[in-house]
Structures are given as structure tokens and as C-alpha cells.
């Protein structure tokens, strides 16, 4: 009985729920609160003269939504999309955006205490996009920060200069 009580106390309200996915063998996750849905890849209409990492636009029940190829965004090797590939529709400040990932694995429950601040550079991705690294047993899960996902390189550089000493970004929760 006592252990049961402890367990419930150990799972307080602020436990994070994350949608986990793979990108070139690495495990990533985004806050489930921001996720609207997960889709199989629909036909994507290319957007000419747009940012390089924008794959195009899709039709989601009548709404036209831009889609970001996360591989391109993080400058990972380009790979043919398998049928495990999915689009995670997330809601960010600019509106709804789709993120193309290699595959979506599961919904994770993570205690905030199991999340560490991001190291300076990780897996070749910029730390601007990372809010922390979660530990789940042996697994290391990179938790994405979506705010900057549509910013151009120039905007990111600029921000870097303006934040005199960004030392350690506080966990954005």
C-alpha cells in the first residue's frame, strides 16, 4: 500500500508527455501539448523560392499547412522516405506546421528531473532547437524546442550575437 502511495507521489502533474520519433538513428521527442496529430506522408506541393528546409505544403482537411523536413533543418544526410516516415503536425507561434520524421515510435512519460540541459552541440544539430536531453533507462532522448524551427540561419546567428552569454539556456518549461 505504501509503495503505491509513493508511486503516485512520484508522478506529479508536471510529468512530461512527449511524442518520440527517430531521425537518422537518433531518438528525438516533442512535447505532446504542441502535437496536433501524426500523419502518413500525403502528397506534398513544393513551394518555389521558399526556405531550403521547407518541403512544401500539404492539405490537412482543407487547411494548407507548410511542412518542414527535419533532416534538412538539422542538416542531416538526405535519405529516401520510407513508408515509416510520418508528418507530425505541431502548433507553434506561426501556426500549424508539419515536421517530416523518419518514424514515430511512442508516447513517452518523462519526469522533469530526468531531463538535463542540452550540451553545446549535439549530433550536429544546433542547440537552439534543443530544450533538453531526457534519460529513460539507457535511452537518451533529445527533446526539441519548436520555437525556432522556422527561423532562418541568419536570424539564428543574429540571436546568437545578441544573447551575449547564452551559457545555459534555462529549460523552457
Amino acid at each position, binding site marked *: 500500500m505504501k509503495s503505491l502511495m509513493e508511486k503516485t507521489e512520484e508522478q506529479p502533474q508536471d510529468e512530461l508527455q512527449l511524442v518520440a520519433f527517430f531521425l537518422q538513428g537518433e531518438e528525438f521527442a516533442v512535447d505532446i501539448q504542441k502535437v496536433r496529430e501524426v500523419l502518413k506522408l*500525403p*502528397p506534398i*506541393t*513544393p*513551394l*518555389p*523560392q*521558399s*526556405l531550403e528546409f*521547407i518541403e*512544401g*505544403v*500539404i*492539405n490537412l*482537411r*482543407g*487547411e*494548407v*499547412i*507548410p511542412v518542414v523536413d527535419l533532416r534538412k533543418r538539422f542538416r542531416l544526410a538526405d535519405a529516401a522516405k520510407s513508408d515509416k516516415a510520418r508528418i507530425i503536425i505541431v502548433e*507553434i507561434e*506561426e*501556426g*500549424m*506546421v508539419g515536421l517530416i520524421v523518419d518514424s514515430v515510435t511512442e508516447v513517452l512519460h518523462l519526469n522533469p528531473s530526468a531531463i538535463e540541459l542540452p550540451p553545446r552541440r549535439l549530433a550536429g544539430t544546433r542547440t537552439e532547437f534543443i530544450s533538453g536531453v531526457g534519460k529513460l533507462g539507457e535511452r537518451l532522448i533529445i527533446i526539441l524546442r519548436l520555437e525556432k524551427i*522556422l527561423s532562418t540561419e541568419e536570424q539564428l546567428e543574429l540571436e546568437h550575437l545578441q544573447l551575449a552569454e547564452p551559457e545555459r539556456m534555462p529549460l523552457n518549461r
Partner: protein
Amino acid sequence: MDTSEYRDLFLAEAREYLQGLNIALLQLESDPADREVLQEMFRAAHSLKGMSATMGYQLLANLTHQMENVLDFLRQGTLRADRDVANILFESLDLLELLLGRLDEPASCLEQVDRVVGKLRAACEGSKDEADFVGNAADGDNLSLDEFEKEMIRVGCAAGERARHLEVVLDASCLLKSVRAYMVFKLMEKFGHIVKAVPGTQELEEEQFEDRFQLVILTQAADETIRAELLQIAEVAAVSVRDVPEMVETSAGLEPAAARRVELVSETAISQEELNGERRNIRRAAEKTIRVETDKLDKLINLVGELVVNRTRVVELGRTDVAAELVSAVEQLDRITTDLQSAVMKLRMVPIKQVFDRFPRMVRDLSQEKGKKVNLEVRGEETELDRSIVNQIGDPLVHLLRNSVDHGIEPPGVRVQNGKPEEGTIVLEARHEGSYVLIRVSDDGRGIATEEMLQKAVEKGLLSSTEAQRMSDEEALRLIFRNGFSTAEQVTDISGRGVGMDAVKTVIESMNGSVDIKTSPGEGTRFYVRLPLTLAIIKAMLVEVAGEIYAIPIEAIRENLYVAPQDIKTIQGEKVVNVRSEVLPLIYLGEMLGMKSGSSEEILSVVVVEAAERKTGLVVDVLLGQQEIVIKSLSRAVEGIRGVAGATVLGNGRVALILDVSSLI
């Protein structure tokens, strides 16, 4: 009470009242004796005051309260609605609008409010002496007695006391208002009992009142004694003592919502008696409407659009199946969805009245400022068109009207000399024409001399003199829309925002509309603005480029051509083709969009488009044909891509981009 969630509703309603007041005031100006208009204005001001007080916007409440006083005097006939009074009232309306825009920082308008309130008071004082005014100002508005208080008064009266209604006005500069209020209370307790205080004692203690408060007391002292004693207290500016209105009527100030309901009921009663007034009909129409958030509406429209897309698929499936049952069911579905779609699209339609309503006021102010006499006739204000068009058409129309007042209508003297009536007339008219709305702005002014236009264009280097000579009158006239040719040289309130005639044209064309001008020197000028009924659906030509489908709005298309490769010439590195002795520059759409284009060996398909008076041929891979498309905006994340105006969803569920011709060529 937390009123923040009612804020938007308050704003919308307040703006409506304000608009109504503006219109009524204009009517009043032309007929100062119109009692019905006065009545309506009084009611509007009264409702505004009540709403503002409920929401805790004291400055607004104060200002409207003073307006109400003035209107009350006008209504009673003790004050005449001359131009000065009208101007003060107009000024008050402008200030109200400003205040509505700055609800969160009312302090920034404090001075202006003080000034205008002062003017309004002065207007009242012009008709009555001050003591009377203070008395009248209160007029039982903020006073209502509950049963308990009434009972107290009855008991008191039976004991030989009299119930007196006091209004105490403190100096505007008074710093310790609660202290003064406390002193007034102390003093009154010497004379008798305080039955009621408005605002309540707690608000008074917390200084939650402007410069005045009201008391109901039971006393045996004479009015003059009370008045004199109260005026002894420092910083008490004015005191009025009068009868408590016989067991007070309605509870106006304290429960405005309830009071308004009462008012509505009584209005209904009146309007049934005198049903013929047009204004009332409009009001009744307004009562039949319901406010819906535009987001919700757009969502509905989106879903219906989806339904229509799916319907098309089902209809196609139905064609391949021979089962008669299915065919008729599909036909039924087809009909219903089509009806549903048109019904939903109509929800977006609003009368153009919303925009037109602000023009009489604008033209009045402008002509006064310019020393001209102008009568604005507004027709067809009930014409409906898409909400988003209504939102955008305001600025261009402001400019056209301004142009007419500024440059069209002559000064009164000149008009008389030319044998015209002293007062110029500008007609603003809207009407349906097929699937378009035509808006006409015409004046009976001096017209435009095309020779002068040409001369000016040559001076400004927009034309060479040989070009000018070859131009027809119509072409010359259209120079007015050319970039860099605005005739408005002086920077004025309205055109100072940089809306030249070229901008008028750009805005209208961005809505897939068009603008044209006709003039006859000495007789006047007419502007014609043609707008689509809705922005949500347009006719477009679908083309294929590099395997992708693009939509080109039909408004921009002049013709389609097939061009043989050998007919293409190169002039200064640009590819052109000769069409009916006109040189047409070609743009390869595929290259332009950074796509790999298809074959270029055979005959080329060319869509000739025109924007900003420039024709260009767009080379595409395949012409797919015309279709009505539903316009969807691109997400904020990717908007502003050059050459792309938006997107649409095709029958197969795929997204096709809509090209923005003006930024492509």
C-alpha cells in the same frame, strides 16, 4: 467583477453606438429640429454610458454622461443644435473613438477628456444656470433605492423628516477625495441620517469615483443650510439639493444591462406604432443578427469546402457505378452540398454600409476644412459583399472621395460663376453586376483635362513627348493610376498616409478587382471600382509546370497563345514574341519558380497576363483549363513568397499554388 471577457463584445457594441451617433448627428445637422433623431442619440449616449460604467471605464462613462446632458437639453429644446454644438458633439465622438482604442491606457487621454467635458459643460451652461445644471446632470440617473431604503424614507417622512437628494461635486484638482467625502458624511450625520450613497461608502473610501457623488439623506434642515455648510468644506466645488424623485423610477446607472432590456422592450412597442421609419427597420434588422467569431466562421467555411471536394470524388465514383440507387443518392448529395456551400459563403457577406457609413462624416469634415460645399449622396449601401473585401475597400474609397472633394468639386464661388449650383454633389453608389459589385464615385466638379495630365506626365518623366502625342484620351486619363503620378501634392490628413491613386489601383487589383475612370471637363469625373463578390472563390486557369499544377487568376489573363519556337526572338537577352505587331516579353514559368521545366521542343503554351499595365507571356507546360477555386491563405510561416498569392485545394485533395501575377512579372 472580472469584465475582461466582455471586453470585445463591449468594444463591438460601443463602436456600433458610436457609428450610429455619428450618422444621427449628421442628420441632426441638416435638420436641427428632428426630435426623433435626438431621441435616438440620447438613448445611444445613455446606453453607452451605462455600458462603460458597468465595464469600469470611468472616463468613457464621464464623457458620455456629459454628452447625454447636452443631448437632453437639445431634446427638451432648451438648447439649439447649431454648428458649434454639433462640432463639440463631433469632437466628443472622435474622443470616444480614441478612448475606445486606448481602453488600457485611458490616462493618456485625460487632458482631452477634461477639455471636451469642459466644452460640453459650457454648452449646457449656455442654456441654464449652473445650480440648475448640476441638478439636472444628476437627474436621478445614478440613483436607485431598494425597498429597504424606501422604507427608511417612508419611516423618516412619517417622523417629520424630509428626504433630500444631494449631489456633491469636488474640485477636479482635489487630491484627497476620500477625506472630503468623509467630511461630507460627518457633516450630514449632524443634519440627519444618510440613507444611501452613490457610489457606495466603500468606493468612496477607496476613491473609486470621479469628481462627484450623490447622497440621499433624511433631514429636517433647510436645503440652503445644508448647501451652505457643505460648501464650507474645502475643495467642494458645487452642491445641489433637491427632492428625491418619487420612489425612484428605473435603475438606470446601476444596472445598465437590465435597463437596456427594458429600453429594448419599450422600443419594440414604439416601433410597432410608428413602423414606417426606415431607421427603425434597420434597427430591427440588427436585432435579428448574431455575433460570431470570424475564426469559427472560417472554420465552417473550410469544412464545407472540404465537403465539396469530397463530394466531387463521390460524384466521380458514382459515375463509374451503374447502380441507379447510388447515382440518385449521389445526385442528391451533390445538390445538397452545393446549396450548403452557397449558404455558408453567404455568411461571409456583409453590407457595404459598414464602410459607407463613415464617409458622410469624413466628407463633411473635409469640405468644411477646404471651404467647399459638398453634398454626399450614398446609394446602394445594402449591397453585400465579402467581409474581407469590405475590410479592405475602405482606404481606396477614402482616397477616391477625397480626390473628388479636393480636386473635383470647385469652390462655391467658382461653381456659381460657371452656372452650377453652389453645392457640389458627390454620389457614392454600390450595386451588383453579375458576380461583381460595382462601386461608383462620381462628382459634378471640374473634371480632368487630359492635356494637363499628359503635360504633367511628361514633366515627371513618366512619358516621352512623342508617347504623349500618340496617347488616346482614355489612356491619358489612366495615367492617374500610374506609379509616381499622384495628383495630391499636399500632405493632408487622409492622403498623407501615402495612398496615391496608384496605391488605390494596387489595392483593388490585389482583390482581383479593377478600377476605371471617366471624365468630362466641366461636368465631372466618375471612378468605377469593380470588385468580385467574394475573395474566397475565384475563377482561375490551371496550368501545369514541371509536373506541378498552378492556378492563375482569370482576372489577370488576357488570352492564351500557342507559340512556335522559331517565332521567339531575343531582344537584349530577353525572349520575346511578336503578337499582332505588339512585342510580348516571355517568362518561362518553370525557370522563374526554380523548377525543372518540361519539354521546350514543341509548340509552347503561353498564358498572356497583364498587371500594372504590362503584358507578359507566361510559358507553361500544359494548359489544363478553367475552374472555380477556393482560395486558402498560406500559413504565416511561409507567407510572402514572391509570385505566390495563396493556395487552393484541388478536387484530388492536393494543394495547388495560386500565382500572384503582379509580383511575377
